[in-house]
């Protein structure tokens, strides 16, 4: 039996997250924050890839080491909560999340 619907459009659900930049990363990007659109089900790694693609080699070298892993002194926070390194790989993002790539900190004093 022929269906009344000739074509079925399967729309991909999208999410919008906010990425904020502090310290040196703000200087690389020239902005405090930006919104990025990702497919539903995207992870922190997907968001980082998008940011690195957008800002290029300088950003890549700042975030990733020679093996392509997130540098030990870089921390990722979602909605202000630091995400354990072991959980970053598959950590799912939700619409409205705030992602911050936290550069190494200095605590405001010298040694």
């Amino acid at each position: 039996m022929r269906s009344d619907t000739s074509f079925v459009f399967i729309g991909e659900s999208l999410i919008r997250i906010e990425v904020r930049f502090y310290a040196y990363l703000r200087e690389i990007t020239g902005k405090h924050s930006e919104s990025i659109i990702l497919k539903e089900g995207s992870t922190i790694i997907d968001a980082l890839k998008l940011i690195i693609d957008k800002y290029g080699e300088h950003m890549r070298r700042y975030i990733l080491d020679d093996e392509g892993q997130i540098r030990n002194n870089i921390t990722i926070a979602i909605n202000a909560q630091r995400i354990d390194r072991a959980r970053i790989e598959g950590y799912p993002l939700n619409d409205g999340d705030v992602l911050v790539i936290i550069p190494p900190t200095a605590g405001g004093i010298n040694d």
Partner: protein
Amino acid sequence: MNEQKNAPSLPSVGVYKKDSLNLLEILAHVDLIYSSGRDGAVASYIGVARNTSREGKAVSYVEIEAYEENANLEISKICRELADKYELSNVGIWHLTGKFMPGEPIVLVVVAGRRRAAVLEGLKEAIERYKTEPAIFKKEVYPDGTHRWVEERH
């Protein structure tokens, strides 16, 4: 909101814009923490903007910025965990953000408890942790106008 354990009259621990909190004013009122008589020791620490970098280079001023939502969470966590770990009655960390000339205070840590050994250990660990765990960033600006974001050694 952060919670300041056992010190209802002092401001909540966390980060504040420079002009919104006077660290020395807090220090002048630490008797609010220990006046009950239950504590035998109070130790405090003030982190001050220095006129030289770690490498000995002259520094004109420093700028401190913070990812406030994270920094407040992390500072509260540090205070709570150290109070439990060392059985302290109070651990307070107040960190300012903004522009600081050499000699200006940037951060205040106050620790109180029954025993001095625990208080001094707690103070030391509080200082080490606030330097690396909260998302607080420091920029040194040099006399020639150049600057550098300082990264803590891990």
